[in-house]
């Protein structure tokens, strides 16, 4: 099966597949990850503060998003948004869906991490005259972010792979590109192995970055 022709195909297709990985898959995942983290932090803050109506709205959002498949959410957005008169290109739509989807999960991760910061530090902040937002910014969020970092990075690694689902709404990302090349040559199996390998490389690099990130964030003198 891995004859000379196949080897040639693998070599010639590698840069073509990688190109879409770097141009579409990674930017999609990175953008959605950054936006979803911001969304997650905001939703977590609303819940941490137990803001009356907003808090219930956030619970509802998390309930809906966690209770439905990502693929279905992509489809709903793809066919539903145009009905509401919202037309946008598939990439942007994918960014939006991935952001809203991941936001629900990172909101829970962040909320748990915020609640893990001892409440006494919040009280101590008040007692030195700081207001709620100052305490959030200087005390609670930095510690929560440090705690949540490995989980959030987990989500990023998942998302890099889940971007392949964007192919279902016509986004030509790394996996779709692989399918196209495979379709031209009728030689599917080796190319799917090849794309799997590229995903693996991406995630290996991310794992390395996670380690570096954790070192950078430090541990406030614990276990030094």
């Amino acid at each position: 099966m891995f004859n000379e022709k196949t080897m040639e195909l693998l070599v010639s297709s590698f840069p073509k597949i990688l190109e879409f990985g770097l141009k579409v898959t990674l930017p999609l995942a990175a953008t959605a990850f950054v936006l979803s983290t911001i969304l997650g932090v905001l939703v977590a803050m609303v819940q941490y503060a137990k803001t009356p109506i907003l808090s219930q709205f956030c619970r509802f959002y998390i309930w809906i998003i966690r209770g439905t498949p990502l693929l279905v959410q992509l489809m709903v957005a793809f066919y539903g948004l145009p009905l509401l008169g919202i037309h946008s290109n598939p990439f942007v739509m994918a960014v939006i869906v991935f952001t809203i989807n991941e936001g629900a999960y990172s909101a829970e991760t962040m909320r748990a991490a915020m609640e893990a910061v001892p409440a006494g530090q919040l009280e101590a902040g008040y007692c030195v005259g700081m207001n709620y937002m100052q305490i959030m910014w200087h005390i609670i969020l930095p510690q929560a972010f440090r705690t949540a970092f490995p989980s959030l990075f987990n989500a990023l690694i998942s998302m890099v792979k889940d971007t392949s689902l964007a192919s279902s709404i016509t986004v030509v990302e790394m996996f779709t590109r692989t399918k196209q090349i495979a379709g031209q040559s009728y030689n599917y199996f080796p190319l799917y192995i090849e794309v799997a390998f590229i995903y693996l490389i991406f995630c290996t690099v991310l794992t390395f970055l996670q380690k570096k990130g954790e070192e950078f964030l430090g541990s406030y003198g614990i276990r030094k």
Partner: protein
Amino acid sequence: MALLEVNNIHKSFGGNNVLKGVSLKVEKGDVISVLGPSGSGKTTLLRCINFLEKADGGELVFEDKKYDLSRMSRASIAEIRMHTGFVFQNYNLFANKTAIQNVTLGLTSARRVAKDKAAKKAMGVLKKVGMGDYADYYPSQLSGGQQQRVAIARALATDPKIIYFDEPTSALDPQLTAEVLEVMRNLAREGMTMIVVTHEISFAREVSTKVMFMADGVVVEEGPAAEFFENPQMERTKEFLRLTGK
């Protein structure tokens, strides 16, 4: 004129009446020790005065301004807290900040003091509590006594008119307790106004100007320290002092 006056403060948790009309008067320079068995409401009293708990009723007079403790606006709470310090039983240092950052934060963030000015001030108070050499240590790298001394420095840095101590040595062993009490003794000597909820009877006897004995949510007996210990009037007080061995 009293610096701080608390009149008829009430607080209950659920159906449990923790404070049943406690009053308190603090003059400038007073060191008031609040004694009493566990569950007497001492800590709740302190937390209500600094709005960490919302009192159900009562009046607070701080620097000649009257406040209804059950209806404090956010603005008045913030205003009063600018002039008070609080030291917790379990220190509550900011875990993500070094000792000096713990001290400067109340200045730079809450009071908009310039960074270099805040750092200078912070170094001064850290030295005062004997923690000058530990400015760049994180709380996790310090002993309990050192953490509590940093917490005292944090309270001192904002030049409070009064500092509340909530059982500041209860989580410490005798040696660490001694080093924290030494710092508090120096503060008292310098004329800092303090309310100290404590189980340290000898500290109360030596350092405080007034002693207040609480039980079951009321003040059983209060008076000048010497009088309180030499000649207690109430049966309950006598029993407490006998049980604590003094």
